């Protein structure tokens, strides 16, 4: 380490600074080693895909202002030797740094030019601190740091669920078309009901299937049930058949008289009126 006071090549401003704050006491190279309470503060666990509607899939949280970080640890110095680049607590009150941020930046730029930046005290303007902080915070654009993700457009976040909906709908499409051709184009109720609940109808796994209108007998539903689509279709068929055969049928009539009739002739094949006249 060269003594800066004997280096005539340095500008006068740096010489004055090193004379006032000798690097043997104040430089970043001899500062007290920083305590390391934690090894890593940034989350290293894999994050869920941002292409979902999941609210937790928006990436890591931003750093808390008071949280320990490796960059902040660089600024920790000995209490006995005051760092002129940092605020100092004295008699219970905070004193400003001897050198403001602008002066620090000027000194740091000069020191970098003459390659003596390591002889300056730890500072927010040092390249080391800036590098560390860049690693932690990214480019100060939300989501670009380590372990963070950008929020993305809504179409990106919902893409996965929409494709899943579409896939399920296309899986159930042949059945739906078959049913549509059988039940017929005349059935107003079929069309409007199916349209209103098409999302539920196409839900193949039946986890949140339609609740139905309660008109279908339970045994009948169970008998022809292998998806929500069929359960709902059975409801509709029962209603149609009831309305045609028994226009004034009540729930009690349906349960006690029409249900046995329907059970006797299964409805999987659908009613006979249909597409021939369309």
């Amino acid at each position, binding site marked *: 380490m060269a003594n800066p006071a004997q280096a005539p090549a340095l500008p006068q401003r740096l010489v004055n600074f090193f004379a006032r704050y000798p690097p043997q006491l104040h430089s970043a190279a001899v500062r007290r080693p920083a305590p390391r309470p934690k090894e890593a503060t940034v989350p290293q666990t894999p994050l869920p895909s941002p292409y979902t509607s999941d609210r937790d899939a928006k990436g890591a949280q931003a750093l808390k202002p008071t949280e320990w970080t490796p960059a902040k640890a660089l600024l920790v110095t000995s209490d006995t030797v005051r760092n002129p680049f940092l605020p100092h607590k004295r008699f219970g009150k905070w004193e400003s740094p001897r050198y403001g941020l602008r002066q620090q930046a000027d000194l740091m730029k000069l020191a970098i030019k003459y390659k003596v930046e390591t002889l300056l005290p730890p500072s927010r303007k040092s390249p080391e601190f800036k590098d560390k902080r860049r690693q932690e915070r990214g480019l100060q654009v939300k989501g670009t740091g380590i372990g963070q993700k950008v929020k993305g457009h809504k179409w990106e976040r919902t893409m996965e669920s*929409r494709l899943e909906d579409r896939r399920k709908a296309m899986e159930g499409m042949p059945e739906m078309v078959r049913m549509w051709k059988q039940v017929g184009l005349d059935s107003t109720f079929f069309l409007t009901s199916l349209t209103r609940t098409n999302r539920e109808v196409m839900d193949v796994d039946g986890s949140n299937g339609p609740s139905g209108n309660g008109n279908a007998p339970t045994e009948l539903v169970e008998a022809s049930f292998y998806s929500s689509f069929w359960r709902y279709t059975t409801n509709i068929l029962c209603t149609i058949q009831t309305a045609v055969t028994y226009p004034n049928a009540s729930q009690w009539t349906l349960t006690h008289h029409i249900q046995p009739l329907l059970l006797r002739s299964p409805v999987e094949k659908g009613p006979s009126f249909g597409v021939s006249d369309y």
Partner: protein
Amino acid sequence: MAKKAKSRTVAVRLISMAMTGYYRTMIRPRVHRPLSMMKYDPVVKKQVLFLEATKGGKNK
């Protein structure tokens, strides 16, 4: 004052049952039954069932 007479026809929206958000707009007589037809859906590149939307646009 008498209300304005309703038009004889209505414009309806036929929604693709492939859940792609694609739809067609057609005009049918007001007293006609709801429309439904097999039409081409360019998103899934297939012919799929299109059903008429209910009034009020509750279905999506």
